[in-house]
């Protein structure tokens, strides 16, 4: 059967479009599944902290978590506070109350601790970031509602780099923003979008890797993305239909709403794959190694939300909002 010129033209156009899409999609896709599961890699549930010893009440829908350089753990929860635990899970202190003033919260969601022990808290409702000493003494705040540079629409996850620059996952603005240590705006990282590298869609978590790269939990593009500290997109990991369109998956080739990620001193990546109710372990190259699933997880709520790693890399802490607790997992790295 002979094809007329219009039909040949359409076929060529389709082939060109598919090739371009494939090339665009392959560029930057780092997720690779090893041929065999990584020997010995995995997690063991070591403990679950419900904060029942806290005088003001146990943990209630905890969502933010960060580890200090000395190993202490900070958690934010629905009681509008930040709770300070030591590495053994013992209560050290807490601060915060309802309001819009210094040390007051409406919905504290993200946490980060810098090298000197200062604690940053993002408030999803107030659209601002507050900085405190390790004991909760107010130091500074910045940000307001909006979409201009330096403004937020529901700031979620936080990270701090070696030079004390602050990175904020700006949920409804579909971007990450970088701030100087004094809280002044520096640069926007990522663009709103669904396709291609650098496009972000409802990012919820951000993390600084040991190599100085920004690792973003691009939750509703169902992927992780790496950026240079200056904002240039590097790579991404997740399942993409036709190598192009990010899609959720329950398989080990991707995620379903990855809401946070953290790396340990070996470069191993731990992902809060919240829609799948699991913690996923990736190699430094982004290869799947192992995962651990929350037993009997409620299908009504995605968990875990945020995740962090102890300074020695031996323990992973993750918030289980639905279970009103912190999951403490022992890491078994690959042999």
């Amino acid at each position, binding site marked *: 059967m002979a094809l007329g010129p219009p039909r040949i033209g359409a076929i060529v156009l389709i082939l060109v479009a598919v090739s371009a899409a494939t090339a665009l999609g392959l560029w930057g896709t780092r997720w690779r599944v090893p041929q065999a599961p990584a020997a010995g890699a995995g997690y063991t549930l070591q403990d679950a902290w419900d904060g029942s010893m806290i005088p003001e009440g146990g943990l209630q*829908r905890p*969502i933010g978590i960060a580890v200090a350089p000395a190993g202490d753990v900070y958690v934010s929860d629905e009681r509008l506070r930040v709770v300070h635990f030591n590495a053994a899970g013992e209560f050290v202190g807490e601060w915060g109350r309802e309001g819009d003033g210094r040390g007051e919260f409406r*919905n504290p*969601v993200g946490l980060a601790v810098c090298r000197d022990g200062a604690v940053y808290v993002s408030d*999803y*409702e107030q659209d601002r970031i507050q900085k405190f000493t390790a004991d909760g003494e107010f130091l500074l705040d910045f940000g307001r509602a909006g979409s201009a540079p330096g403004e937020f629409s*529901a700031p*979620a996850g936080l990270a701090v780099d070696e030079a004390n620059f602050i990175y904020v996952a700006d*949920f*409804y603005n579909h971007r990450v923003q970088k701030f100087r240590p004094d809280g002044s705006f520096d640069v926007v990282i990522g663009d709103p979008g669904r396709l291609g590298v650098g496009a972000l869609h*409802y990012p*919820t978590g951000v993390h600084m890797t040991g190599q100085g790269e920004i690792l973003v939990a691009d*939750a509703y593009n169902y992927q992780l993305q790496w950026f240079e500290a200056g904002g240039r997109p590097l790579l991404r990991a997740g399942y993409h239909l036709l190598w192009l369109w990010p899609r959720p998956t329950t398989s080990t080739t991707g995620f379903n*709403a990855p*809401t946070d990620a953290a790396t340990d001193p070996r470069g191993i990546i731990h992902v809060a794959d*919240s*829609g799948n109710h699991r913690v996923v372990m990736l190699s430094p190259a982004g290869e799947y190694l192992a995962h651990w699933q929350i037993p009997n997880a409620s*299908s*009504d*709520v*995605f968990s875990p*939300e945020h995740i962090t790693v102890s300074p020695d890399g031996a323990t992973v802490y993750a918030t289980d*909002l639905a279970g009103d607790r912190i999951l403490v997992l022992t890491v078994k790295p690959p042999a």
Partner: protein
Amino acid sequence: MQTNAHRGRQPLHRLVIGVVVVMALGQVASTFSAAAQAPAGDRNQAVVTVRGMQCPFCADGIKKHLAKLTGATRADVELAKNQAIVTFTPGAKVTDAQIQQAVRNAGFTAGAIEWRAGTPDEAR
């Protein structure tokens, strides 16, 4: 002189006019519909069906957008019931369309909206 080409555009004109009329009627109907669904009397609490908000970031986002509605005193979500519950001051002038827009701004689509009498405590 009327050309063939001109005569050929006449159906297009009629189509454009028809579309404009339908859009205008739709706008008028929407306005009346929204006004008709504004809370009446002591029905100051809207129960909004929102599906797919298992993610806490999304649920908090819906609460945040609904709480910004004029007259809203409280917004909550019931994840297990796929519901968002907004309580307004008595007599607040809010329409279903405004609620639907707030939910849309939060990245979701609102389903049925039921109005009832309520207090902030009942929304918990």
